[in-house]
């Protein structure tokens, strides 16, 4: 069999691609393609993990972020939290091993997901500086803190411990991570400053202390003392999986029968639905799921997509809510008007999600500037790839003119406003691993538009009202200014006492005020 020989030859050439090689080739996919972005990504991964950990422990987060500049292109990022801490044996794995994490393939609304983030930062640090990262973590006041200096063995994808010790730490529990890296600090729309600010807006229950490279200390104080509702983990919905995932699930299931597998490992499948599925796939419900071959798995997959299944539960999501969205915005952006909307949960491809939108208008916001769009996914700011994001598309596709903003064609609206859009989901469909932009699912875009139209309508009625009041005041003001002029002209013409004329005119103005304003409107 010539084919077999060929395959064996090929196998000799095949080798495992080391993680570092993979990283160097694909750093742009992970968001580490330039030093400015690398700094942001590192802060982001650390803070996202800290916030997720605090939420999981149900503790109000206290986060300290510090950027220290060592040389022109060398920085140290330190992030400290009051989370649950990491048990001693897990510390090296969490930071020193790629694709290691508790949240991988778990369906719940958390910030991180693949367990890729922090270790990628560690790898980047190692590749650009050769330095180890430093971690202190403590899980209880009764236990000591553990200190580690770690690197990643890029050949084996295993942590390499350079130093470990027990130590005292003033905290009861928490984690502190210090990463040295090649980076560049910049201000602006895609900066760490902006990331921290937006994070504070959409996480109004968080205290953040942020120390910039110029030693400026910025404190973002929490505006609410309650933790957000805990997101619940849900099982995958049959419409939301891919064939590969199904095959993985078949291998690792604890169920002994196919029908058991379907009912236990998926949401919204009961015995009737399960029966319908394996019958349609011509499979035996009592067969062992771990022994299903690839052809049968594909049959099963197709059957699962064809059978009607009710939508997944949506109470697993934790939206920010209209009140807190407005509170968060108010705390950071001085405007005259705020509005927010939190839509009912919906489902795309078996994944539940919620769209929330908010808008701030007037105040210190620039009048003739392009309206800013703050994009957020599971409470994490998205600062890059605005043009490639479904949120942007939905925003520019919305007609803002009826809502009182200027807009030319399908561009971002212009006016003194900030638009905030948050998507919360157990599985946000990002366009890349750096999680910069939301993918263009038509059902998601439609839902975003509905949310934008909702806040738009609130904004429009506010603008109309204030503009109307202003115009009315101007109109009355005009007459008040004209009356003395007319009176003095009439005095010159007739010799009648000026004060007397003015008094009668003022009287008419007061009497006919209402009438005047209405006439003015008709005239328009």
């Amino acid at each position, binding site marked *: 069999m010539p084919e077999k020989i060929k395959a064996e030859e090929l196998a000799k050439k095949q080798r495992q691609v080391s993680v570092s090689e993979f990283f160097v080739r694909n750093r742009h996919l992970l968001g580490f393609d330039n030093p400015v972005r690398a700094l942001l990504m590192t802060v982001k991964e650390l803070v996202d993990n800290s916030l997720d950990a605090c939420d999981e422990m149900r503790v109000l987060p206290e986060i300290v972020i510090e950027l220290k500049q060592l040389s022109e292109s060398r920085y140290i990022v330190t992030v400290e939290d009051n989370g649950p801490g990491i048990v001693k044996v897990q510390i090296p794995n969490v930071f020193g091993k790629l694709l290691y994490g508790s949240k991988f393939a778990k369906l719940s609304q958390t910030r991180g997901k693949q367990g890729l983030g922090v270790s990628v930062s560690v790898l980047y640090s190692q590749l650009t500086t050769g330095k180890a990262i430093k971690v202190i973590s403590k899980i209880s006041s009764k236990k000591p803190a553990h200190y580690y200096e770690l690197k990643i063995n890029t050949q084996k994808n295993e942590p390499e411990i350079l130093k470990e010790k027990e130590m005292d730490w003033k905290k009861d529990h928490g984690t502190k991570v210090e990463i040295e890296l090649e980076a560049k600090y910049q201000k602006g729309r895609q900066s760490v400053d902006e990331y921290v600010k937006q994070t504070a807006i959409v996480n109004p229950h968080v205290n953040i202390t942020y120390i910039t490279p110029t030693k400026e200390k910025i404190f973002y104080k929490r505006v609410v003392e309650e933790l957000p509702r805990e997101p619940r983990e849900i099982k995958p919905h049959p419409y939301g999986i891919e064939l590969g995932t199904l095959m993985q699930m078949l291998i690792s299931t604890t169920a002994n029968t196919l029908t058991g597998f379907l009912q236990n490992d998926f949401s919204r499948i009961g015995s009737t639905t399960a029966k319908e599925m394996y019958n349609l796939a011509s499979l035996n419900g009592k067969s062992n799921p771990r022994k299903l071959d690839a052809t049968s798995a594909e049959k099963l997959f197709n059957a699962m997509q064809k059978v009607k299944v009710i939508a997944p539960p949506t109470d697993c999501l934790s939206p920010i809510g209209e009140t807190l969205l407005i509170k968060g915005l108010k705390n950071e952006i001085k405007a005259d008007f705020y509005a927010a909307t939190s839509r009912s949960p919906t489902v795309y491809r078996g994944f539940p999600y919620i769209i929330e939108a908010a808008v701030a208008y007037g105040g210190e916001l620039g009048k003739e500037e392009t309206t800013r769009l703050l994009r957020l996914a599971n409470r994490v700011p998205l600062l890059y790839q605005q043009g490639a994001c479904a949120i942007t598309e939905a925003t520019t596709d919305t007609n803002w003119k009826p809502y009182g903003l200027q807009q030319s064609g399908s561009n971002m609206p212009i006016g003194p406003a900030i638009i905030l859009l948050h998507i919360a989901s157990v599985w946000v469909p990002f366009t890349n691993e750096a999680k910069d932009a939301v993918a263009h699912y038509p059902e998601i875009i439609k839902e975003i538009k509905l949310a934008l139209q909702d806040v738009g309508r609130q904004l429009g009625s506010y603008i109309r009202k204030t503009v109307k009041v202003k115009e009315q005041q101007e109109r009355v003001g005009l007459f008040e200014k004209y009356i003395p*002029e*007319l009176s003095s*002209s009439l005095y*010159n*013409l*007739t010799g009648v006492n000026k004060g007397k004329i003015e008094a*009668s005119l003022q009287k*008419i103005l007061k009497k006919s005020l209402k009438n005047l304003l209405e006439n*003015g409107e008709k*005239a328009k």
Partner: protein
Amino acid sequence: MVKKQNKIKEELKGFGIDIVKQAEKGKNPTITLPVRALSNIIYDRKTRTLVLGKKMAERSFFNVAHAKKFLQTVEVASIIKRELLESGKHSSLRDVFYMAKRTIPGTTVNLVDDQTDSDKAIEDLEVVTTFSREQLHVNANKNGSIAGKVVIEDSGDTIDWSKLGSGGWSIPSNVENIKFKKVNAKYIIYMEKAAVWERLHEDKFWNKNNCIIISSQGQTTRGIRRLLQRLYEEHKLPIYVLVDNDPWGFYIYSVIKYGSIALAHAAERLTIPGVKFIGISCDDITKYDLKKHFIRFTDQDKARLKQIAEYDWFKDNKEWQRQFEMMKKNDAKVEIQSLSSRGISFISEKYLPEKIKNKEFLD
């Protein structure tokens, strides 16, 4: 004189008192004026003049759209009464604009933004008081020249129109108080071009033909129209109008004969239904071989010709409709000066004498 002055002052004061009374009664002060737009212009076939129709417009002070105009009208009335009539001085339209111009305290609004505002207010007051602008002591710029065997008296001075050198007498805005002491002329030629007037004056056309020559530069001013009317009425002199062969020239003739839209309220004092059109007619173009001097019509020219042809007072005039048809066919215009191609004094020695002798006029 003094009596009339007082009457004008009283009329203006009465206008103000009426407004004050309305205000005292708690009414929104309102001025009622006839509408001065084409929609309210009537061609009176009997008198052959354009007059204002009966459509009235109300202008109220407490109305966002009217307030400023209302204020302008009253302010200009007070300026005219106090600054001009009471001091016995005259001023130009431009002066009135500057006297009224100021920023209303506490606003960024100017009482008058440009001269059209104050000019319009003056026209309103003419309508309200039935006195002319000149009687309100507001004069326009001097415009136009005159020459002929006429002696007049103006402001105590005696002036002989035949003895004023190359410039002639320039016609003031107010010709109301001029007295004609001696008029020795058989007719008047009025022309739109100063250059043509200078030609005729140098050739002593008025002396040789015993007539009066008058020119303006472009549109005929009120002063000239009133002077023409007085000579026509008081001395029964026929008037012939000499203009370019184009829609704008035709319109100059139309204004002198029938009146204009803007001044329909003053029709009585200004229109002269008896004037006749001497040239350049479309027939002249063929007769005097002027085709080679054609100037192509612009779109504007075409549109204007169409408008004029549709005016009530031209609509049923067969002779004029024939002219309009010919001009439309020519699709071009001819200037008076093109006659000079046949010799510099062709106009004074041949063209005009011939036309007058043969009575080649359009009516």
